[in-house]
């Protein structure tokens, strides 16, 4: 058994034990949000970290997922499970929708057009009142129905129980991403990140690979959106702005782009950091901004960049030399 599997299993065990060990509802609530952010960060990591397409549109897909779920359950009376699947699919379709114009773009052009996309979806949520109820938002979204596990009644209105539902999806998404990046497809995506022209010369279909990355990344965000609204019970356009996209991107970058565990640590770290900085009140975001800048100045590889440096040892030295040669 490979060493990395031990790490994954250890992390999974910690995650499974988390609700058992933590009594405090507020910390548990933050934990649920942090794990929803893991889904978002993992999706963005697939697009930005592995495929190299820097996107700030992730909040849009988060929003599409959230609104789809809210509208389907509240207005049309769908159940939780069909709604979450529909959210994922619709968000994935929106990902392809953004992917098409983004195919030709690179660097700052791509970033700016994804910013434009966030604003367009935000305006849509805000102004398409007949469907989204505009700035009032949609209220009264129920928790997913509970069930009995033998003697034990699972009640999703309890954050301790909801956590496991989110964890379930995180594990599914993690396994999916793990098997994806170790497949031919995943290697193709990484090749695009390193050098798209070379990748195309090697016979990788840039168009379909990029569209795939856009749609899968968005699909995960759709799942996250659905889990988010069913937990919070309320959805409004203000949750899905550029600031949210930036947050998710920061999680990916801080954790370490293009690593499996990076977005997980990034999402948990940033969510708890922002929650714990609440006592700083109005200084909170000022300090957050400074932290972002300092991290980029001193550790552009993120947290996992440091971890890999220590674990990889000599191999990393070689890697560094290769990179410097370029």
């Amino acid at each position: 058994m490979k060493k990395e599997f031990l790490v994954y299993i250890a992390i999974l065990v910690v995650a499974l034990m988390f609700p058992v060990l933590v009594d405090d509802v507020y910390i548990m609530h933050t934990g649920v949000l942090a794990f929803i952010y893991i889904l978002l960060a993992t999706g963005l990591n697939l697009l930005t970290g592995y495929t190299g397409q820097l996107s700030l549109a992730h909040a849009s897909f988060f929003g599409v997922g959230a609104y789809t779920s809210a509208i389907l359950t509240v207005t049309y009376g769908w159940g939780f499970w069909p709604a979450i699947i529909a959210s994922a699919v619709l968000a994935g379709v929106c990902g392809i929708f953004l992917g098409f114009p983004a195919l030709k773009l690179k660097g700052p052009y791509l970033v700016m057009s994804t910013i434009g996309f966030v604003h367009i979806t935000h305006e849509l949520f805000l102004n398409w009142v007949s469907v989204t109820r505009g700035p009032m938002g949609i209220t009264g979204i129920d928790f997913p129905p509970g069930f009995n596990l033998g003697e034990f009644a699972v009640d999703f209105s309890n954050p301790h129980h909801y956590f496991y539902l989110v964890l379930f999806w995180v594990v599914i998404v993690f396994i999916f991403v793990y098997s994806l990046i170790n497949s031919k497809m995943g290697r193709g995506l990484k090749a695009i990140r390193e050098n798209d022209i070379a990748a195309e010369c090697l016979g990788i279909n840039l168009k379909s690979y990029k569209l795939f990355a856009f749609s899968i990344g968005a699909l995960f965000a759709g799942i996250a959106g659905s889990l988010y609204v069913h937990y919070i019970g309320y959805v409004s356009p203000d949750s899905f702005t550029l600031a949210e996209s930036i947050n998710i991107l920061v999680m990916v970058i801080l954790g370490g782009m293009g690593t499996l565990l990076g977005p997980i640590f990034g999402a948990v770290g940033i969510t708890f950091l922002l929650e714990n900085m609440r006592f700083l009140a109005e200084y909170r975001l000022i300090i957050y901004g400074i932290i972002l800048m300092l991290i980029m100045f001193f550790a552009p590889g993120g947290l996992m960049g440091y971890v890999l440096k220590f674990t990889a040892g000599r191999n990393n030295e070689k890697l560094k030399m290769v990179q410097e040669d370029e």
Partner: protein
Amino acid sequence: MLLLQHLFSGIVLGCTYTLFSLGLTLIYGILGIVNYAHGELYMFGAFLAFYAALILKVNYFMAVVVATIGMAVLGYIIERAAFRPLRGYDDTSIIVATIGLSIFMQNLGIMIFGPDPVRLETVTADISVNIGGLTVGLQRIIVVVVTVALIVALNLFSQKTRMGKAMRACAQDLTAAKMMGININKVTITTTIIGAALAGIGGALVAPLYLVSPVMGIKVCTKAFAVVILGGLGNVPGAIFGGFLVGIAESITAGMISSHLRDVVAFAILVVALLFKPEGLFAKHMQEKV
């Protein structure tokens, strides 16, 4: 006549976008940095003018001058503290770092100036002039005149002066410019100062027209991104054309069709432009080096 009225407001709006985008596009062209904190420079400029008028009790023109000088100083600080350490970093790091700078400055603005919007009261804002049946506020005329003057001045600066030539050389090829003995640091500082001052003047000019608040920068900033992409990043004539195009399109759409669409227009133009001409309307065809 109504169309003409909207056209004129569009030109005024276009002036703001142009002043804003000029700095953005200059900084990208020479430093290779997409400055996401540019909106905050605009906001600081507006507040500086407001407080100069309030505390120093100077007239409006002096307030604009104070704001310009203040923004030039701020531009110098930003270049030294943020842009220079970022030189040679990859796109992602630069983008996140300037986003960090933007969050920092915006919240600093909220802390210093308070979250509530204010309005700079001036004499010029209340006077209207009638030009051939068209009622036009004096302040709006000032905006247009100052913008045109600044564009002409910037053009003269870049064509005639030594520093302007150095800037153009750096925009073409930074390494080659360095080898020709151009002091890169001086050029980047000058560029950032000019960019910041232009954004600051933009903010100070609209302070009597629109509300001044710490979040005023973001919306303009994202639209200015649409403008600079439309014209091609780093392309000065493109930024001017794009600024007026977006301003006029926005004003006419808001006035003639629906004000809900106001904020979408710029992005709709952006999407169309990206689909058909992703390298910008004015860019020469670029061949990528392999």
